[in-house]
């Protein structure tokens, strides 16, 4: 029963979806202070390469590598963020775009470390390592009636699901805290926020670094899911992919980019013929969204509407039970 239900293909798509949701949220956090960063693909690469190199060369356990990768990306976010956040929106976008490209060029050229454009292969695979560990503990996937690859992909999917739930929970809480209020005050009007005594540099750098950390985190997970990375994975087009999650889904509430990532990962799988025209469609989506609904599909009103619907349904269910 369980074994028939678990198809690695759907789990794989689901796992990419979850990683993309993390990336979408990383975009959202920086945007929640009104800053557009296009360096997230670069930070993703930093996280991916850091974790991959550490686990390959120093045989660190994957979770340690992922955490160090994410932290390193976050630290770099602070280093880059401090000077660049003096710049206004459009300039920040261009500098971060340039920064992302510089990172990619470094990956390509630093051959002794990154093997250049050939890419890093043989990165420890999250699911396979886990399988090895549980087998050593005497557990066989067959006990659950699963094949090895079913187990691997279910494990990856579940791990990512837990991570994504945690990330969403964390940033939901942050949003409702003082930090979140400071972020939205800055987004609304920087000067007013400053005059209210909010340390805008601190909060902007914080948001930028959080975005970088989260991108790096997603990148590290990506590396251990594919087992192979190359500089081309973190190029300009990846930055656009991440941007469009937030543009389509919306950047007012955290559900926006999460929905954008969910929908846009699913779309080419469900409608294969779209895949050929994917970027053309993306281009049109971006323009249309900016014209018709710049806040994205999911804004506060939609969330309120869903909330009302679900509570009503919840009440109905409640009486039924």
């Amino acid at each position, binding site marked *: 029963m369980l074994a*028939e*239900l*678990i*198809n*690695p*293909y*759907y789990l*794989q*798509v*689901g796992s*990419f979806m979850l990683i993309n949701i993390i990336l979408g949220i990383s975009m959202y956090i920086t945007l929640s202070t009104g800053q557009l960063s296009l360096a997230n693909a670069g930070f993703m690469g930093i996280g991916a390469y850091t974790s991959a190199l550490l686990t390959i060369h120093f045989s660190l356990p994957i979770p340690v590598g992922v955490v160090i990768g994410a932290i390193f990306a976050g630290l770099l976010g602070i280093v880059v963020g401090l000077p660049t956040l003096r710049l206004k929106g459009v300039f920040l976008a261009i500098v971060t775009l340039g920064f992302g490209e510089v990172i990619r060029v470094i990956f*390509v*050229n630093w051959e002794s470390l990154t093997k*250049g*454009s*050939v*890419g890093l*292969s043989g990165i420890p*695979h999250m699911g*396979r390592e886990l399988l090895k560990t549980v087998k050593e503990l005497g557990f066989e996937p067959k006990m659950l009636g699963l094949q*090895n*690859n079913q187990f*691997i*992909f279910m494990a990856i999917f579940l791990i990512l699901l837990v991570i994504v*739930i945690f990330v*969403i*929970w964390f940033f*939901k809480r942050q949003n409702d805290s003082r930090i979140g209020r400071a972020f939205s005050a800055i987004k609304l009007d920087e000067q007013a926020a400053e005059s209210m005594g909010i340390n805008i540099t601190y909060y902007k750098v914080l948001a930028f670094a959080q975005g970088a950390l989260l991108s790096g985190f997603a990148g590290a997970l990506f590396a251990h899911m*594919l*087992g*192979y990375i*190359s*500089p*081309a*994975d973190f190029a300009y087009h990846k930055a656009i992919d991440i941007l469009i999650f937030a543009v389509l889904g919306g950047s007012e509430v955290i*559900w926006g980019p999460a929905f954008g990532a969910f929908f846009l990962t699913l779309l*080419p*799988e469900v409608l*294969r013929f779209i*895949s*050929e*025209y*994917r*970027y053309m469609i993306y281009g049109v989506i971006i323009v249309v969204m900016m014209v018709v609904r710049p806040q994205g599909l999911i804004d506060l009103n939609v*969330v309120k509407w*869903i*909330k009302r619907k*679900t*509570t009503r349904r*919840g009440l109905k269910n409640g009486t039924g039970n």
Partner: protein
Amino acid sequence: MSIFKKFMQFSAVSSMLLLAACGGGGDETASGTEGQADGGSGVVSADIGVISYNSGPGAAYGEAITNGLKLAQEEINAKGEVNINLKIEDSAGEQDQALTAAQKLINSENVTAIIGPTLSTEMNVVGPEADLSGVPIMGTSTTAEGIPQLGEYVFRNSIPEALAIPASLKKAIEAYDVKKVAILYGNDDVLTKSGFDTMKATAEEMGLEILTIETFQKGQSDYNAQLTKIKSLNPDLILASALYNEGAVIMDQARKMGIDVPFVGGNGFNSPEVINIAGDAANGLIVATPWFGEKEDPKVQDFVAKYTEKFGKAPDQFAAQSYDGLYIFAEALKNAGDSDRDAFRDALAEISNFEGILGNFSFDEEGDVVMEPTVLTIKDGKFQEFNE
């Protein structure tokens, strides 16, 4: 907080429903193909998955590959010994999409074996996965180093750079008395970078003096700076690891500048398009290839005629390699007598002295190619066999 919980419940339920619905669909197709395989009377039927680069900047490669496969499939099925059903998936040249395509083919479509993916980068991701699932996979265009070594189920029928470059370089050295070379390569592409690594190693091995190593990047259209530098060093030969698009432009700019030494290129440089783009400037390019469309072999000429008639353009190396690839699969399928993945893998590994349009072909023990490439040069505006 309660909203959050509710939303999670809602999304969890909906994703479960989604998985269940999709899972059901997958099972149906799976049982369908099994029935087909068993029900045949003496004819071995099999689903072969194809992962190919059908959209995006490299879509031309994918198009040639799928065209070659379709032509081969038609002919093979018409013969009636085996019946091959192709399931073509697009990877858009990206690893993650190639991997999901592979998962779909392996787990939902239950294919016997896979042809593709197109790029070595994609194979680096897909190969280990197919190997783990016990699905034989063969690249028809993956020429980078280390591909068949990914696993026991990973094969290729495209000649690696390690075979092609030494062959062409050796002939060029003999013909032109080469002592000093300059190398120019695209450093942000796997194929050209891997080709460069082989070039450098080969040149050092043959005792050539490497004057300079220059790089270029994708999307660049101005190579004058690199070429001017190379020109001032006066090499006897230029080793250029470039895809034909960039390679042709490089030759054009070099000839305009007055560089008239021969060029030796890698696998990616070998295409009739070079002549279309660069015109007379393409003269003097030397490449080693398994595929030569002008060969006076009736099999080759037959293929060229049929392909041209069906698709309206002459086949290139990618089409020829995938065409031969499917024939190799058909042969293995016939020998295995069954669409079982393991039986097929063993039969595939046994293939040797297969006579295809590319010539005499065998697998070595790792699943790599054993084959004698033909060295070609462009002379008077067309590809000719190099024998000077």
